[in-house]
């Protein structure tokens, strides 16, 4: 019942284990690149001012104690870039389905979406949004989404790791060790503020792997929460009693152990009570992804000093088999979460400070395979979302009549061009200092003037 390539799952496990241990990466595929950031030091740090348990990467010479003041004193960045990753290779031909392309139904006898099943993509009426991406379609209708219907690079690599690595480092070089956003932080960032680059999935995204400056990862957005069905004022009485359970005398080592743990737990609850509890002005879908975005919006409103944030989309996209159901649930959770996040920012008046970039390592093969899935392809799709997004399609949809030499979708925009524009137009930074060969890439206009 393999739903994605076996090597992929196994490699993901090894990859995460290796990243955590800060050790070298086991080679799964011959020539597979080491992710950026492999081997960075990883230290655990409880930030009281932010109320977060952080894993801090890099800057190993800076003492942890410096980060507390670093976070408290860092100015919140004016512009924040949130990068959302569709892990596994999102099928662009389902998200923006070319239902009016004559070859589509032919190549996808089982997986083709029916014409009219989802909203039409207004900028190219051959294309149609996946019904589960309605949230994205809504934002597009409001002019807040710039779509790249066929993004990639020349001579596309169909390995998850190699292609993802290229996107992470912003260059076609397996040897690079820093992420493209990591280099940006190295150039503009702070020595003592690990929140400037924040991964919300427990371990560091290679995209923000730096050479010098500290960056951080968090497991979740909940801080040090202790749940209960009790509210204030009774709640504070409850914790007062809990604290007293911790300070009563003991007559055995076992009891002493419980008393100590109780007292310390309550102490930490008080110290880390900061942003642990947040509330959202809009409803979010009840998913882990939605919950993280809700937390992120709250962090931004609290003024946590973040510049770039990475988060993995809901679901897995390496849909080699049984694609329809997996894709639908992942897309739905992701797009509903993103819509709620945008609405939240708008409600809080933060919409002009945040831009979201959606990407995947590649698109999938136009012709479906024999197990109601699709195999690795070339051109994929990407999106830039936000109130400040230009809202215009970048690169045309190349059609299915003429495919590349491997029967894959042709590329009509280069991801490094997108990175250059995001750096220059959004982050106000010289792209040439971050993206090798930046001068050679066409810059699409991504931000509203």
């Amino acid at each position, binding site marked *: 019942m393999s739903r994605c390539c*076996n090597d992929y799952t196994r490699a993901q496990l090894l990859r995460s284990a290796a990243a955590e241990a800060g050790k070298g990466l086991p080679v799964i595929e011959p020539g597979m690149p080491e992710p950026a950031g492999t081997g960075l030091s990883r230290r655990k740090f409880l930030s009281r*001012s*932010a*109320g977060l348990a952080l894993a801090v990467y890099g800057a190993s010479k800076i003492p942890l104690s410096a980060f507390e003041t670093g976070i*408290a004193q*860092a100015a*919140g960045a004016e512009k924040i870039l949130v990068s959302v990753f569709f892990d596994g290779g999102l099928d662009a031909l389902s998200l923006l389905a070319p239902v009016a392309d004559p070859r589509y139904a032919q190549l996808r006898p089982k997986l083709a979406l029916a014409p009219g099943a989802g909203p039409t993509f207004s900028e190219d009426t051959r294309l149609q949004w996946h019904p589960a991406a309605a949230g994205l379609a809504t934002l597009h209708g409001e002019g807040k989404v710039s779509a790249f219907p066929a993004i990639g690079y020349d001579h596309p690599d169909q390995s998850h790791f190699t292609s993802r690595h290229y996107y992470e480092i912003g260059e076609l070089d397996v040897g690079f060790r820093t992420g493209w956003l990591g280099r940006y932080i190295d150039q503009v960032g702070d020595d003592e503020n690990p929140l400037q680059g924040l991964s919300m999935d427990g371990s560091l995204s290679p995209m923000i792997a730096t050479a010098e400056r500290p960056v951080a990862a968090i497991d979740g957005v*909940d801080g*040090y*929460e*202790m*749940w*209960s*069905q*009790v*509210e*204030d*004022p*009774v*709640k504070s*009485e*409850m914790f*007062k*009693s*809990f604290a*007293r*359970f911790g300070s*009563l*005398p003991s*007559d*055995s*080592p*076992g*009891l002493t*152990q*419980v*008393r*100590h*743990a*109780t007292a*310390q*737990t309550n102490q*930490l*609850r008080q110290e880390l*009570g*900061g*942003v*642990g*509890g*947040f*509330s959202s002005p809009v409803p979010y879908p*009840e*998913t*882990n992804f939605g*919950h993280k975005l809700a*937390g992120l919006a709250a962090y931004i409103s*609290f*003024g*946590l*000093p973040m510049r770039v944030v990475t988060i993995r989309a809901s679901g897995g996209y390496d849909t080699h088999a049984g694609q329809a159901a997996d894709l639908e649930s992942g897309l739905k959770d992701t797009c509903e979460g993103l819509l709620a996040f945008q609405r939240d920012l708008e409600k809080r008046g933060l919409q002009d400070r945040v831009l979201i970039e959606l990407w995947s390592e590649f698109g999938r093969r136009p012709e479906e395979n024999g197990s109601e899935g699709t195999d690795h392809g070339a051109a994929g799709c990407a999106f830039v979302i936000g109130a400040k997004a230009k809202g215009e399609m970048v690169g045309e949809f190349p059609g299915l009549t003429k495919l590349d030499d491997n029967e894959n979708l042709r590329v009509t925009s280069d991801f490094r061009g997108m990175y250059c524009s995001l750096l220059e137009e959004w982050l106000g930074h010289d792209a040439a200092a971050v993206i090798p060969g930046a001068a050679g890439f066409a810059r699409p206009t991504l931000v509203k003037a």
Partner: protein
Amino acid sequence: MAIPQTDTNKGRPKRHHRKRKHVWKDKHYRWVPTADGDWRVQGYIVRHKHRPAKGHFRGPGKKPARRGVGNPVNPDPRPAGAYQGPFGHAQAVRLLSRAGFGPSGGQADQLASMGLVAAVQSLTRPSGAATLNGPPPVDDEGSPIAPADAWGHDHLWWLDRMVRSNQPLVERMALILHDWFATSSAGVSKQQQMIDQSNLFRSACFGSFLDLFRAVTVDPAMLQWLNGAENTKSAPNENYAREMMELFSLGADRGAYTEDDIREQARALTGWRYDWSSEEGAHNFRFDPKRHDTNNKTVFGRTGNWGWEDACRLCVENPLHPSFFVDKLWSYFLPQPPAAGVREGLINAYVSSGWQIRPIVEAILTSPDLYEGPPMVKPPVVHLAGMLRALGRYVDTDAWRWLCEPAGQVLFWPPNVSGWDDSRWLDTSRMRARWNIVDYVLDDVSIRPWSDPYSTTENADEAIARAIAIWGSPEIRPEHRAELLDLSQRSEKLIVANWQKAPYRAMRQNALLQLIGVSPDLILQ
């Protein structure tokens, strides 16, 4: 940067999968023993998942025969050296907590009525296959769990057995042996192989340690985990040879073995192999004579053409094995080591029985230390299973898997080959995890203060009585009861307006339930 010091409950993961399912509360009746040897009818609440059929059987059924009261035979003869004090409710609770997962329903009283020895033997001498009482385990969607296939359902499967089995000590012994021969899913290709290993522990937990040891040595999960199947005469792998001595039978730094013994033992163990395919993982485990080293090996000074069965026997026959066995087994049931004389007696009993496990378990469970000695911290799954039993709740959500992870114990995933560290069950993150487990466990019981109706007059004493009764009337230490009473009174003083009367009382009730769940009374066994 301004951080609002809010302290709301917003971070609690929404239980989006878990709908509050309707239950049909139904009063049933059963016979419970009385102190004078008779039986009386007791009412109790059964929570039906489905609407019960009209007129279905609600008990109590035929009254059991009078128990031997006035019978001249001593109903509770106790061997010399055994605990001689009263064996009542409190002692039965302790026995059920250490040799199982705590009482459920009227179980403690029933056990107390049997007397110490019979009570212990009812646990150590189960007959036939275990019965699982109550609704079978389901996931968040209400679908039956798939322990062999679905991630995390292996944990749910075992937790369910802890909650529902009528042979609790078998499950507790399996947990002990899982820790003793700690094998992790991390190194095993299929969940079913881990489940099979736990079933091996269930079937062999009261028999001969040598038989158990041999079965574990060639168990497919173990052969993968400690590379027993990568150990060939041309390329010996010492992993299992070392751990079988250090962790399973002899102990490190006791002078029981040398590095040479390990190397020789590894050669004795050569020959096991399996096949691998991406569909089936590791399968077809077998002994291949071509891979076995047939030269003589010298282990513990004894020379012979030893094979894997000899390797286990040599360990068990090592003079330092019986003391290792007794100390280790004892440590699972008692927080402090046995007195020298007690230890000596157990060692002799173990050797003279031919390395039988059952008599040692029985001796430990009847020892005075168990009933008179200090308490010990429950492992997280034991705490959780005990709470589910006390509340009459079952495995009905995937949450029982992910909640156990931050608490420090996921079944089939011990941290390493030496098992869990029993001295480190509690720290600030694990204690918080236990708090959150208690909150989740109380999901069906706690009151929604703003939507559920609740008493507007309940006083402090009534509130405490209600909360303790919901937890199945556990023993609460007097100083804890005093604090709970204080909390009850403090909370009541907060009520200054009419609209607060019911909601604040509901919150007080929830607070009491929560605090009892995380109190030493429920965390200790």
